[in-house]
């Protein structure tokens, strides 16, 4: 297994005697590649085809060309609201997540034998069902919930965390950070463990202060892990659905409506599978563009010579 989390893919060695295993390979690959074809490639293309239709759940689909796309881009202000919300969520969530995870994992690293226990503790919400997590946050953040009762102890009249349009998105981001940060704490913690203490010791002897060691040694050495975290966190952020679905229902108004929630509603509440597929492709293109952009900058930003 790779020592450092990395998105650089190893290539399999060519065997010494190059005999083809074509038929044998076909047998082994059959289940995986058929499944890949039927449940991933075909739906991806089908999604594009469906987006060219007016496609109700029941009834006959009608070809409408690019109408869904023109409506999305020019005739549906909700799309731009939803896109803006999702971008806002993704930027805030990713930046806060990475900064906090970097801070916490460095802190835990300095705690020696206590570190692993807390790393696992912070990881728990990643694994517990998001629905259960979201429901308990809804309970805590309701107007007379425990957060506001706690604030009342200090004479503070707590706001409506989930139904105030200024605060609802912030609440979603806070809940999502709690839910997801353990993932990056684990990855960055593993990256930190991979940095040789001798290197830091050498930097110390050379007179580098704590901050200098962090920015000049630790951060470059950690860049493969950070790159991995950034790619995964941004993708995760664009898929946000369960939090608004259960905490705010996308409201108040459209203030916490996200691409996937809007996609779900168009498909399964508004009976517009074609339009929902156009939204799905918008999501797909955005995520792929951002990921490609990151990979194109990988060589410049990431230091792989360990």
């Amino acid at each position, binding site marked *: *297994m790779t020592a450092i*989390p990395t998105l650089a893919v190893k290539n399999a060695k060519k065997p010494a005697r190059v005999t083809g295993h074509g038929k044998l390979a076909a047998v082994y690959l059959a289940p995986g590649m058929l499944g890949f074809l039927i449940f991933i490639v075909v739906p991806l293309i089908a999604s594009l085809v469906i987006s060219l239709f007016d496609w109700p759940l029941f009834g006959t689909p009608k070809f409408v060309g690019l109408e869904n796309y023109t409506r999305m881009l020019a005739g549906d202000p909700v799309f731009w609201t939803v896109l803006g919300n999702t971008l806002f969520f993704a930027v805030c969530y990713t930046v806060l997540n990475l900064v906090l995870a970097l801070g916490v994992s460095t*802190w835990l690293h300095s705690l020696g034998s206590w570190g692993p226990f807390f790393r696992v503790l912070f990881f728990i*919400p990643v694994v517990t*069902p998001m629905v259960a997590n979201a429901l308990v946050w809804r309970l805590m953040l309701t107007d007379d919930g425990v957060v506001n009762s706690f604030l009342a102890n200090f004479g503070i009249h707590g706001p409506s965390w989930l139904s105030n349009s200024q605060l609802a998105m912030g609440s979603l981001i806070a809940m999502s950070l709690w839910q997801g940060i353990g993932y990056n704490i684990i*990855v960055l913690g593993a990256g930190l463990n991979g940095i040789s203490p001798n290197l830091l010791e050498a930097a110390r002897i050379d007179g580098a202060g704590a901050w200098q060691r962090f920015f000049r040694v630790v951060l470059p050495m950690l860049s493969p892990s950070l790159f991995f975290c950034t790619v995964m966190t941004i993708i995760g952020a664009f898929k946000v659905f369960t939090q608004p679905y259960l905490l705010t229902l996308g409201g108040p108004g459209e203030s916490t409506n996200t691409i996937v929630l809007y996609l779900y509603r168009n498909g399964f509440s508004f009976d517009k599978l074609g339009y929902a597929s156009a939204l799905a492709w918008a*999501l797909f293109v955005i995520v792929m563009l951002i990921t490609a952009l990151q990979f194109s900058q990988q060589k410049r930003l990431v230091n792989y010579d360990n």
Partner: protein
Amino acid sequence: MTTETMAKGATPNIGTLKSQPPARRRKKRPGTYISRAAIILAGLIFFFPFLWMVATSLKPTSEVFSTGSNFLASRVEWSNYVTAWTAIPFAQVIANSFLVSIAGAALTTVVSLLSAYAFARLQFKHRDKLFLVFLGTLVLPQEVLVIPLYIMMNKLDQVNSLPALIVPFAFGAFGAFLIRQFLLSLPVEFEEAARIDGAGSLRILWSVILPLVRAPLAVVAVFSFIDYWSSFLWPLIVINDVSRATIPLGLSMFSGERGTDWGPLMAAATVAVIPSLLVVILLQRQLVKGVSMGGFGGR
């Protein structure tokens, strides 16, 4: 890198949670104690939502809000668990969740192993190109696929069926990627020796490879189990009969019906959280390995 060096920890191993010991032992400074006190406090605050979930699940409905931030109610109300158990066909929902998660994990693991073996050990045309395309699914949001998948399930008359929850999501690249990377770090000599002894390829896979790849197989199984266990959007779309629901969907349906009945709702949430909690505690090493390989990523 061989398994032996990995086991000895000669190379920094992603699988170990232990921090490396400091180069030399230093005396504990007062800062250490402050830092430890602070992390305990931070840990408690972080874990609070789970404590609140359990505390609420034991409160009578009348006291859920009236006790304010009082942690415990005047009396322990176990009947919330009974209410939750009978309000939704909870035993059925839990059984569905286990069935879907176990079958899904098994299917994913077997398919991944077969693909990984072919990609790591067999020689065929366009192998590395095909693998790279396949690997692209690691960053493909599954949300993009749900509408065509729903139409497909509808055409196949599989709406409201448990196979519809299992089969479409067993073919991601994560498992094959993880096992393949591991296989590439193993020497091929064992397999060569077995081949010279006349073992066929299936036999080599079964008797030589399988015992060696148990660790990454466990990682794949654990991850797909949790993925199926927590999955929400797809069950929400393809299941509308509560007797076919998995736990997250059951919870959501329950909260839709009795949104303010927090005691029983938190009782059900507590039950949903416990298996995941056990997995984290018992299988932390597998989880750490899997996370570092892109588990829970785009799928």
